[in-house]
């Protein structure tokens, strides 16, 4: 039954990656923006939550709840003031700007919080586990997975059943024609990035509660998130979950063979999918 355990643990790990990736997927899908600072923004949000816990004495959940609107505003500002000005056919300007933001964030956090590893205290949840008969799973990974599903269901609901979601999809299809419908693409983009930052805060909460973090770990998280998004296919949130699960299972399976192969196995799975399907598993019909 080891393989079943590996599969279940891998899927749960995939939930964490999907959570990292959901905000990225939203932004990438709507405006084709490659945000290389996404991982550092997660780490930034984790410090924000940590500050709520340590300075204000809040529970992590309340701290995250308070951090969410703050992050929304930051995302909105970032998009409106900076990213909207560099979006275009050429991918280099947004790539460079977000790379610059990534380096600035990492080093800013380093100055503010030092290179020491930190962790958001989660109390009794840390290390708690649940016996499901065939396999035993950690409560925290299970909650992460559930949160990923909730986040994706919520984002999909927003995307497919609200006027805002309609505007998102229309702008993504054809920003010029969306303008003719009275939609300001730049406003839509700012809101989308704001929402992505709310999801980032949720991801940061689990990142910080599950393991130690320090200012430098953003890029590694980013790469898993990108792999999940690309495997899933542009604009498909369930695809992103599938991508996260593929990476998670591959990593867990790799680690089961040899602990040193964990990360490698995830990357190889990504490369294999890209070789077979260069546009991901669930690409949109039109692009």
């Amino acid at each position: 039954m080891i393989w079943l355990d590996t599969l279940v643990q891998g899927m749960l790990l995939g939930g964490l990656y999907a959570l990292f990736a959901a905000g990225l997927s939203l932004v990438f899908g709507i405006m084709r923006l490659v945000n290389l600072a996404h991982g550092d923004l997660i780490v930034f949000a984790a410090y924000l939550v940590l500050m709520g816990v340590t300075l204000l004495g809040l529970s992590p959940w309340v701290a995250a709840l308070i951090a969410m609107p703050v992050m929304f505003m930051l995302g909105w500002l970032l998009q409106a003031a900076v990213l909207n000005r560099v979006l275009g056919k050429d991918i280099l300007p947004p790539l460079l700007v977000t790379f610059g933001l990534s380096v600035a964030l990492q080093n800013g956090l380093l100055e503010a919080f030092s290179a020491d590893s930190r962790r958001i205290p989660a109390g009794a949840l840390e290390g708690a586990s649940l016996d499901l008969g065939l396999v035993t799973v950690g409560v925290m990974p299970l909650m992460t997975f559930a949160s990923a599903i909730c986040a994706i269901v919520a984002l999909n609901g927003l995307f497919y059943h609200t006027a805002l979601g309609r505007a998102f999809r229309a702008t993504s299809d054809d920003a010029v024609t969306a303008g003719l419908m009275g939609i300001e693409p730049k406003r839509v983009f700012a809101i989308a990035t704001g929402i992505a930052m709310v999801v980032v805060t949720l991801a940061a909460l689990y990142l910080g509660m599950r393991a130690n973090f320090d200012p430098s770990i953003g890029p590694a998280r980013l790469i898993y998130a990108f792999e999940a998004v690309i495997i899933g296919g542009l604009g498909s949130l369930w695809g992103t979950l599938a991508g996260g699960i593929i990476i998670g299972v591959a990593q867990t399976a790799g680690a089961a063979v040899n602990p040193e192969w964990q990360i490698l196995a995830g990357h190889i799975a990504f490369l294999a999918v890209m070789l077979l399907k260069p546009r991901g598993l669930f690409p949109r019909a039109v692009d």
Partner: protein
Amino acid sequence: MYRLTTRTRAGTATEIAVIVLVVAGLALPAVTSRGVIQDLFFILTMLTLAQIWNLLAGYGGLVSVGQQAFVGIGAYAMFAGVILLGWNPVAAILLGGLAALALAVPTAFFAFRLQGAYFAIGTWVIAEVTRLLIAQWKALGGGTGTSLPREATSNIMGTDAIRTLFGVREAAARDILAYWLALALVVAVTGCIYWLLRSRLGLALAAVRDNVDAAQAVGVDVRRLKWAVFLIAAAATGLTGALIFVQTARISPEAAFAVTDWTAYVIFIVVIGGIGTIEGPIVGVLVFFALRSALADYGSWYLMTLGLAAIAVMLFAPKGLWGLISARSGLHLFPVRRRLAGPKIEGGH
């Protein structure tokens, strides 16, 4: 009756200035301290990487964020040459270039299937995979890395001559040798790129950059062009990587495959200076080094400033500092424009 010319006054002046600078650069170790030589080594190698990335992205349109793969594989191949084959480190640098070239073939095969952002991320993942595979190589220290053995570093060809010439210790002599090699490499790489841009390939690159459809319609083989640029860039990056780690004499997967050091900073240098020009990376590396020197006492503030400077340049001067300068003055230090000279042409005599 009609003549093609690329020669300009500024271009000739640059050529003379470069020769003077190179001669002065060769003689410099006689009059400066070891610290300055090390700083210059750093500047020259970063400039080399910047010129190469500029060729790749600025001229070839290949926005790679995985160049650290070639720095790392080049450095490790050099180490393998020294430790496993017993080569002299200087000779083993060539092995670094070869290894990077070999890695570039499958990388290009894979990455050229991907478009735009996917290409960028794809190259990064390949660099990560290479790093993780190299970390499995126990003979070269695995995940923790290793150092060049003493007998190899003390025996590098030419260091004895340098010791007697300048009357310095062995370690300083090694730095001087590395510095000379870096000087040779940056001149060779920049010179090659300059030559390339003035050859047929340069026209093809400019054509593809401006308009792919039209380039195909006049017979440019876009695919072959991209392959050529990618492979050349990889080999040169591998050589540079190997040289960098000859100087440090210590290697680890994290250091050799660092995305920030070998790609992020390099991209900042190119963009701050001005992408798509040979002058741009030169200006960029000077700004980079000035920032580093000025903020050296403030820890990571300088990196933060660098990141913010890159953002500011992209927002307010997308063509970089050199773009501002040449737009105002019309100056081109490395002219690549082919001018038709002859009767009836505006400004052609």
